[in-house]
């Protein structure tokens, strides 16, 4: 049974989404919730069995590698699945409040969201280079239409930009896949490393294409320009998923590629280059976030910045950095989801999200503001939170490897994050008279507030659950235990 779990984790939501498409608005919200529940349970069972029994592998169609496609769930995949499905489940609950009413658009939302969920699971369990390409496309092409759920009029330009980058990025990646196959004759991640290292220039070009392709899809500075508009204009639930999971899945892919297929040709200069890009992302994204005048754009730019932290793994490449980068991914995922959901509640209640006009929000929207604050703690990397643990690990790694400049990047990044997070809180707590609420919308349903808060609390709790999660993750692949 255990070896079927990866398949189920992918196909319960995928089939659920497809059937939602078939059944249309009438099935909302019962069917999506049933599927969400089943998916979460199944994925958690999968994570549980990985925790207990170690890695799980499922050869699809019964064909052995390199012929068939393997589904593999190792520590890294399990951690990402955990993140994906916990956040996914909570976002589903939130969406029950936001998109729970019957209607064509809502029906499409649920279909797409379940498809996206399945796609993300597919991405995390895949062990095949080309299959990862398909999964990436699956993720992008379910994510982009989801942006449109907020109403095409204001999102179409963002979606178009998003599409350009997503499509181009995956084709660059595909070029890398092609070259890899040319030199390695296989697509199984575990079989590529050696041949690729001996593949000469083709191998080098393959590596470059794979990395850049994923960087483009992960919206790493300077390839981020599509992100703020898309994440900033999508419906709250979608923004949360996009920022917390979708771009994160690309970063996951980069980590996996680096440590498995590209492990043989790791070059320090390339690693440093990635680190520099990460640092640039942290600086650029944070400063831009600080300058935004709209709440959701602040949060979106924050994502641009936070993704940079994971890139700092590459130049350091020790076990601590590995744990730090992955933990950062998890912590950021949870926190960012909370931020976007909270921002969504604000938007729902106030009718706009122009920062300067958000005053005295803490009274009507106490829970959401609190959720925002809690998640902000993690984003700033302050204790006690998941973000802090990640920062601690990365800092330790920086000093362990003697690359103190990354430590400075981490610290400055924390400051910049504090600047934009507190700027938001400042407006929220402001008591001064002035335009407060333009279009007073409904107070967000309890469900929406509490989900946001739950995610916020979770991002704090992550500060204390390091041991089990890092235990699940395991050490840096390839490193001596």
């Amino acid at each position, binding site marked *: 049974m255990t070896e079927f779990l990866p398949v189920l984790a992918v196909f319960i939501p995928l089939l659920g989404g497809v059937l939602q498409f078939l059944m249309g608005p009438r099935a909302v919200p019962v069917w999506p919730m049933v599927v969400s529940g089943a998916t979460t349970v199944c994925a958690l069972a999968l994570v549980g069995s990985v925790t207990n029994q170690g890695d799980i592998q499922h050869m699809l169609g019964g064909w052995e590698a390199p012929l068939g496609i393997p589904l593999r769930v190792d520590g890294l995949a399990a951690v990402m699945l955990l993140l994906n499905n916990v956040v996914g489940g909570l976002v589903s609950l939130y969406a029950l409040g936001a998109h729970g009413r019957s209607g064509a658009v809502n029906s499409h939302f649920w279909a797409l969201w379940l498809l996206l969920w399945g796609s993300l699971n597919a991405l995390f369990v895949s062990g095949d280079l080309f299959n990862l390409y398909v999964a990436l496309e699956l993720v992008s092409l379910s994510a982009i239409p989801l942006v449109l759920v907020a109403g095409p009029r204001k999102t179409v330009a963002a979606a178009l930009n998003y599409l350009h980058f997503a499509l181009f990025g995956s084709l660059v990646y595909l070029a890398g896949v092609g070259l890899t196959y040319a030199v390695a004759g296989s697509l199984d991640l575990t079989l590529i490393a050696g041949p690729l290292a001996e593949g000469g220039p083709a191998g080098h070009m393959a590596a470059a294409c794979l990395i850049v392709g994923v960087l483009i899809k992960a919206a790493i500075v300077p390839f981020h320009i599509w992100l703020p508009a898309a994440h900033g204009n999508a419906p709250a639930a979608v923004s949360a998923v996009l920022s917390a999971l979708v771009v994160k899945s690309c970063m996951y892919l980069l980590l996996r590629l680096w440590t498995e297929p590209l492990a043989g040709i790791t070059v320090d200069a390339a690693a440093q280059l990635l680190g520099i890009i990460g640092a640039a992302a942290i600086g650029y994204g944070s400063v831009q976030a600080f300058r935004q005048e709209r709440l959701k754009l602040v949060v979106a730019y924050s994502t641009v910045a936070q993704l940079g932290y994971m890139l700092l793994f590459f130049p350091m490449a020790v076990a601590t950095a590995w744990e730090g980068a992955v933990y950062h991914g998890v912590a950021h995922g949870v926190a960012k989801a909370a931020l976007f959901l909270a921002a969504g509640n604000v938007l729902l209640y106030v009718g706009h999200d122009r920062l300067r006009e958000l005053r005295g929000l*803490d009274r009507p929207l106490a829970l959401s503001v609190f959720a925002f604050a809690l998640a902000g703690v993690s984003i700033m990397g*302050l204790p006690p939170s998941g973000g802090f643990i990640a920062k601690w690990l990365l*800092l330790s790694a920086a000093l362990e490897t003697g690359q103190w400049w990354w430590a400075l990047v981490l*610290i400055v990044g924390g400051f910049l994050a*504090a600047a934009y997070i507190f700027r938001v809180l400042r407006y929220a707590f402001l008591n001064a008279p002035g335009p407060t609420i333009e279009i007073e919308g409904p107070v967000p349903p309890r469900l929406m507030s509490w989900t946001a808060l739950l995610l916020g609390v979770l991002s704090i709790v992550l500060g204390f659950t390091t*041991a089990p999660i890092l235990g699940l993750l395991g050490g840096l692949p390839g490193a001596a235990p």
Partner: protein
Amino acid sequence: MSTLYQAMPLWVLLISLVTAVAVFIAGEKWQRLRTAFNLSGAVLKLVLVAIMLWGVDLGHTFVVHLPLLPGLNLVLQADALALLFMSLSAVLWLVTTVYAIAYLERAPDRARFFGFFSLCVTATMGIAMAGNLFTFFVFYELLTLATWPLVIHRGTDKVMVAGRTYLHYTLGGGAVFLLGIVLLYHLAGPTDFVAGGELLHLGEDHAGALTAIFVLLIIGVGVKAAIVPLHGWLPTAMVAPAPVSALLHAVAVVKAGAFGIVRVVHDVYGVELVQQLHLGTALAVVASITIIYGSLRAIWQTDLKRRLAFSTVSQVSYVALGVAMGSPLATIGGLVHLVHQGLMKITLFFCAGAYAETYGIHAIRELDGIGRRMPWTTAMFTLGAFGMIGVPPLAGFISKWYLGLGAVDAHQYWVIPVLLGSTVLNAIYFLPLLHRAWFRPLAITDKDRGEAHPGLLWPTVFTGLSAMGVGLLAAFAWSPLGWVELIVVREYGL
């Protein structure tokens, strides 16, 4: 000993955390329920701390471990030093809660206020019981976060600017502190708080690194302890409501910083190493500069709370000065000042709050003749002020006494002029104030509202008399001084 008893630190921590959550949940609507939560939490905590105090006196150890990473544990332990700070916090929390309930009787957002207030105390307790630098840092930053909403409680633009300044300093300090911890962790592995420290063996080989780390750590905690030139946030943060200023300046924030200095000097580096690296004198000099500078600045403040704030800047560095000199006597002076300054300064801030709340007095010149309308409050203010000057039998005298003795003991004779200078300066900025309050004709023309609200008055009287009591009964074994002597005996292994 049962596990439950051993885990007392956790319960103490949880009490205020649960209180915070309960207060948040009770919200604005259920005021009585909220107040009940608040008070029972405070009382319960006091009881628990008392039990621990008794336990530690008997030699019991309270330790709770939560492993986060290999070699990185969240450790809560209650040693004698921790309990010193905890007792202070627990007592003053209760008192301040009572005060704050009266102070904010008609104010909005009380649930938020009291929630963060409890959170603040949780953080303080955590700081007190932190068993290693990592744990200390966790709670140290939590304190920053929990106090910010309190500082900006009023929510005006001016307050927001103050809040920003507060964050600039505290977050900056936190970052530097973190860097120091990580460096130290990298150099020496996990750094548990152990009397005398565990770094002495590294002293010869890594003198430079250890010095740099020490500087980073001290800057980190020095921000909260408002050591010049890192003090800028403190007077600005005076825009907060009086109970916040009281708790912030007497107990939570600045004391957390001062307490951190104690921990770093005594339990991380150890006095011996600190002296060996010549860091003690350097720290003492910085502390002395702070003492004098803070007092000088206080003289020219025209706002009561700002003057008190600069006074705090000056006074808190007594603690640093005491531990930096490396003599047991000086350490006694420094440590006991942790408690004494707390009692005196909270009294002063309570009074300032009572003046503001009862007659809207903020500026010093408005204090004229207030002693006639509010004799009890002003009497308590007088006690606090004289305590600050170091007049016996008030608490400040005992601290200053031991600091002076320590200075002689450590052969740091230059410290004595500093102490005397501080005394003179304290007199210069406090005595005219008392003169105004008692001997000038009444300035305010409001109708006579008499004394402050009992909820404001009684906590003030309590702390004021305590400030006198701890001085008067200093030789008593269970007085702060007695307890501090116990600590110092343990720390120095005498």
